[in-house]
């Protein structure tokens, strides 16, 4: 209990970061590299602060309104960037984050300018934050099994195949932007209400990097990966305080090593290991020997024959 109280700020930050990581992970799961969730974090943070300070709205109503607002903005943004893909789309989403932070700085009295807003006092508790995260994780579990998971996999891996099988790629991407907006705003709003302040400095490049790192290291396919990433990168800086001024270097080395040796994240690495163990115990029936021989001949003759199966 003493430990819990002493580390309350980090515990809360873990769950906030979990939601922020999810706002990056959701678009990634459908094959879209988007940082817009970080911008939504800003929208949520300011919306909740303004509603609480000016209109004295209860915490959950303020969070709810912030979430709906950012979801709508996320959807509209998806329409704007509908024709972009890959790197250009990623750049556009970075621009989105920058626009939100510029709006925050230049918002005059409404956003408090460069100083931000203070005194957003609410009755939001740590338990409330955890409850929201549990609900979000439960809902996301539904997207990680059965038919919805298959559709998401198809949209990410092969949009053309998805179309030919009747799976709408564009609606799926729009949905991802919308959900990403909602999750990012939820993180931003709850963070503001817990800390009682918000300033444009929070929407910096570090937040973008943090959000991405959590997903890359944790794993990009499941909310479990986002949660593991959130735990690691919320606690790592305080654990690394023992190395003093070398903290930044060690942090960087950990990230680089993880990216090299676990390209699919911790969850992906665990899954691969499980697959390998299962594969060893269960011989996969392959084609009979004569088939194999012919196949070898065929492969020797044709260079691209092995490329089809990934």
């Amino acid at each position, binding site marked *: 209990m003493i430990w819990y109280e002493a580390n309350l700020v980090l515990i809360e930050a873990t769950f906030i970061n979990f939601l922020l990581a999810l706002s990056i992970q959701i678009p990634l799961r459908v094959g879209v590299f988007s940082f817009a969730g970080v911008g939504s974090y800003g929208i949520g943070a300011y919306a909740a602060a303004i509603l609480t300070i000016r209109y004295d709205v209860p915490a959950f109503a303020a969070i709810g309104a912030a979430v709906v607002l950012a979801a709508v903005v996320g959807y509209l943004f998806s329409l704007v960037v509908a024709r972009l893909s890959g790197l250009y789309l990623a750049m556009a989403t970075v621009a989105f984050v920058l626009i939100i932070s510029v709006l925050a700085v230049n918002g005059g009295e409404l956003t408090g300018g460069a100083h931000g807003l203070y005194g957003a006092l609410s009755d939001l508790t740590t338990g409330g934050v955890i409850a929201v995260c549990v609900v979000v994780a439960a809902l996301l579990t*539904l997207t990680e*099994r*059965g*038919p*919805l998971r*298959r*559709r998401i*996999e*198809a949209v990410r*891996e*092969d949009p*053309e*195949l998805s*179309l*030919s*099988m*009747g*799976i*709408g790629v564009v609606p799926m991407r729009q949905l991802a932007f919308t959900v990403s907006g909602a999750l990012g705003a939820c993180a931003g709003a709850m963070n503001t209400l817990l800390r009682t302040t918000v300033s444009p400095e929070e929407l910096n490049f570090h937040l973008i990097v943090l959000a991405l790192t959590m997903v890359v290291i944790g794993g990009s*396919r499941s909310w479990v990966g986002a949660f593991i990433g959130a735990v690691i990168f919320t606690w790592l800086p305080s654990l690394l305080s023992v190395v003093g001024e070398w903290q930044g270097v060690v942090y960087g080395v950990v990230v680089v090593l993880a990216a090299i040796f676990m390209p699919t994240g911790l969850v992906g690495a665990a899954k691969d290991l499980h*697959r390998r163990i299962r*594969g060893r115990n269960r011989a*996969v*029936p*392959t*084609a009979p020997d*004569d*088939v*194999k021989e*012919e*196949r070898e001949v*065929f*492969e020797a003759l*044709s260079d691209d*024959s*092995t*490329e*089809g*199966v*990934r």
Partner: protein
Amino acid sequence: MTTAQTAPPVLEAEDVAVHYGGIKAVDGFGLRLPAGKIYGILGPNGSGKSTFLAAVTRLVPLTRGRLLIDGREYHTESPTMLARKGLARTFQTVRLLPELTVLENVQLGADTNASGGRLRSWLGRDKPSEAVEEAIERTGLGDVRSAWPGELSYGMARRVEIARALAARPRLLLLDEPTAGMNHSERQEVSELMRKLRDEGLAQLIVEHDVQMMVDTCDHLVAMNSGTLVAEGSPSEVVSHPAVQEAYLGKRWRSHA
């Protein structure tokens, strides 16, 4: 050769052209595929066969022409509508989803036609439907149903592609080089399966450059070269057609340069 008085052809393509800038990949090609028949498009590499299939499945826009399913124009509709109209296809290269098992890959094919409420077809843990089990059984994938695509031989992976298309219970099946990379006995098996499906009423359009396989399997052949039709008729007629021979063996040597 028209069947105007009876049912319209399952698939009809009229004067289809697909141009990429100055390149005329398909230029004025057409066919009428009746129910319960296997039509084959024969042609050398680069003759426009796969582009034609892409046009038929609305993955590339038409420069010119009309496409009809059951006598209804569809070349302005979204490609996602085609699955609901009963069209399924396989691709020239194996396109299985690497993070789904063989069973899940086949299930994906059936998802479009999933019965029950819309929400139920999106959420929840589902047992493989009858159509999925049937597709797996007919393509002989029972033993590898829980394997990952990366563990399969090329021929096996091809079967999964066919099973995924069949799981949608289509009325029209488009197959782009379905037996590429298969050995002789596998080819025969696939050919036999296609003929069985035809007898059950499934219209099929095969694109292939394996002439023997096409002659053995198809009811009707259409030969294509440089994006246009060069010959059409029964398999034996088409393969012995001089224009087809020329397309495969290259232009005949002519003395005046």
